[in-house]
């Protein structure tokens, strides 16, 4: 990768609680370059949000034990003090949060909230900053941005608030945009609008985009690379072709098999992943997925599998031999997730 923007090396985040140490992120590494998009998929509590809140410097050593390196534009920002981090946040990397209903301040006009973000970084006149806020609202597709900038968040619908959040995040033209479940609270029609908007902005500004989600459909359409997280670790990492057509981790298989899909006729039954996600205090020994894994072997209970690359970038953390994984995927998962007679059947009605 030529132009690495962000590199995370073996990031670990642990929260001390009265019940014990919560290992929210347990050794995550990845890289992302300008203009690329990374999808981060996993269940609640898999550590997706904590990873990126830590990268943003929003989780600090005050509340958690943090180890590893977060190298942003060549510098380890994890070691930076808060006031320097504040200069990076917003201008270098910006984040869009999940809940558009609670992430805007209800007492301030939307335009002023966007302006505040700009003023925190740049010395510009009030008039100029207001014009820029309006311009950003126009860019994210809000009609009558002039009037809308003077309104309060409660006068905006959910989709419009999320657009306003994106406008705010992009107002300083950041190199990296992190969208944490940007569309989970929204209807499908609005979701499509917002994701198209992020795609367009990625093209226009050459921004690197991270989309954190639990929706495998969203990442299939909008992310080139995908990291599947489980219990604070990356279970699998690869391009979207790798993940959807050649997945190598039993957890990814489980996800692919358990989703109800609109592109299939109503099939017999979904095949859920057995059991519950593990506690992050008492993480299972060996591979943390082993209690739920139908292909568990003795070694899985003892040894933690490393994230190893099979070919090129495509890596998975699983003890199963590669040939065995390819066989299982082809026989048990692929028919469900791609090709074959099922697919033909759907499209031919």
């Amino acid at each position, binding site marked *: 990768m030529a132009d690495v923007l962000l590199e995370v090396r073996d990031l670990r985040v642990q929260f001390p609680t009265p019940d014990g140490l919560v290992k929210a992120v347990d050794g995550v590494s990845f890289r992302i370059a300008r203009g690329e998009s990374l999808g981060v998929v996993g*269940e*609640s509590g898999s550590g997706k949000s904590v990873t990126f809140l830590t990268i943003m410097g929003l989780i600090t050593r005050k509340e958690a034990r943090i180890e590893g390196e977060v190298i942003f534009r060549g510098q380890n920002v994890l070691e930076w003090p808060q006031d320097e981090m504040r200069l990076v946040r917003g201008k270098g990397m910006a984040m869009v949060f999940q809940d558009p209903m609670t992430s805007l301040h209800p007492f301030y006009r939307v335009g002023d909230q966007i302006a505040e973000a700009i003023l925190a970084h740049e010395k510009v006149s009030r008039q100029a900053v207001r014009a820029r806020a309006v311009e950003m609202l126009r860019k994210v597709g809000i*009609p009558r941005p002039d009037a809308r900038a003077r309104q309060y968040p409660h006068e905006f*619908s*959910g*989709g*419009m608030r999320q657009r306003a959040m994106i406008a705010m995040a992009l107002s300083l033209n950041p190199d990296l945009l992190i969208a944490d479940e940007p569309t989970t609270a929204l*209807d*499908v*029609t*609005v*979701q*499509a*609008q917002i*994701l*198209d908007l992020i795609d367009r902005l990625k093209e226009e500004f050459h921004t690197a985009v991270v989309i954190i989600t*639990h*929706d*495998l*459909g*969203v990442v*299939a*359409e*909008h992310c080139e690379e995908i990291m599947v997280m489980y219990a604070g670790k990356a279970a699998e990492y690869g391009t*979207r*072709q790798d993940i*959807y057509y050649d997945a190598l981790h039993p957890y990814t298989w*489980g*996800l*692919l098999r*358990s*989703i*109800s*899909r*609109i*592109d299939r*006729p*109503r*099939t017999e*039954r*979904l*095949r*859920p*992943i057995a059991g*519950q*996600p593990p506690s992050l205090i008492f993480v299972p020994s060996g591979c943390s997925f082993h209690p739920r894994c139908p292909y568990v072997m003795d070694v899985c209970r003892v040894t933690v599998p490393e994230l190893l690359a099979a070919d090129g970038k495509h890596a998975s953390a699983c003890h199963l031999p590669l040939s065995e994984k390819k066989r299982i995927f082809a026989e048990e998962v692929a028919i469900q*997730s*791609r090709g074959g007679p099922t*697919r*033909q059947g*759907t*499209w*031919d*009605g």
Partner: protein
Amino acid sequence: MNVAAKTPLVKLEGVKKSFPVTRGIILQRKIGEVHAVDGVDLEIYPGETLGLVGETGCGKTTLGRCITRLLDVTEGRVLLDGQDITRWGRRKMRPLRREMQMIFQDPFSSLNPRKTVGSIVGDPFKIHKTTPKDRIKGEVQQLMELVGLNPEHYNRYPHEFSGGQRQRIGLARSLALRPKLIVCDEPVSALDVSIQAQILNLLVDLQEEFNLTYLFIAHDLSVVKHVSDRVAVMYLGKIVEMAPGDTLYENPKHPYTGALLSAVPIPDPDLSAHKKRIILEGDVPSPIDPPSGCRFHPRCPKSREAARAEGLGDEPHPRCREEEPALLPHHPGQVAACHFPLPDRAVIEADAG
């Protein structure tokens, strides 16, 4: 499914529900009405699952609550098993409550945090006095086992359970009195995908075992497709299309249905690159003052297309602005309310390879 031969379990005739909009704190003046449900005819047959989809604020939850009579309808009739229950009072309704139950979206707020699972699931027996007190515990434990909970957890509180398990508790509670109809209001949208699948499978199993009828309200079209025999699409208080599940997903007739379907992301990169997209502009208009004619016309791409074809400019077709379309039949079992319905297979292309 041949539904015509059976008598419906639930029948709605021209159901309307509006809420007043008031201004002022002490002297409240009515300044308008929100037409949450605005003239819905609907039949739900015994043993079937009717999916109800639509965007936020389209009135799907209100409709579910009108059916269970948790809300009084403003106009129209609600029939259960052929009886008109529209104006029944509280006392008269009470025995009927056993026949219809609800499962709610949020498994965290729909269970009383100060009650044990045993008493949450056991309360229906006490209220309806169907089971002697000494046998309630046994019944509750049987129910817990049925929905996949450990019966030994009888004395635990809701906070000790995960989201999926709590939804199972809600399900056990709703099954306690062996209802005929369960209105499931977004039962899985708060859950993780792997847990969603567990709950959906459980719903299907229970339906077979107890011959349940479901009204399945959700905004996730993939989930609705998986569980429903028939699907109804709501827009601004009205049903705009209703069809057997497969027909609706393959050949949607209403442009709104088409737009909803085309917006669902497909977890298959190659296929999703193939998909035709119908992007809708703008937000849902206010149900206080819905658009004239077809309510969808300000956002409808098809109506503009029809107008352009007739050389009437870039605005929606005048017919859509003036005349309200009726629900007309298309494919077997399919009705749609549109002046310019979509051609077959408008969203999903034939497989190109």
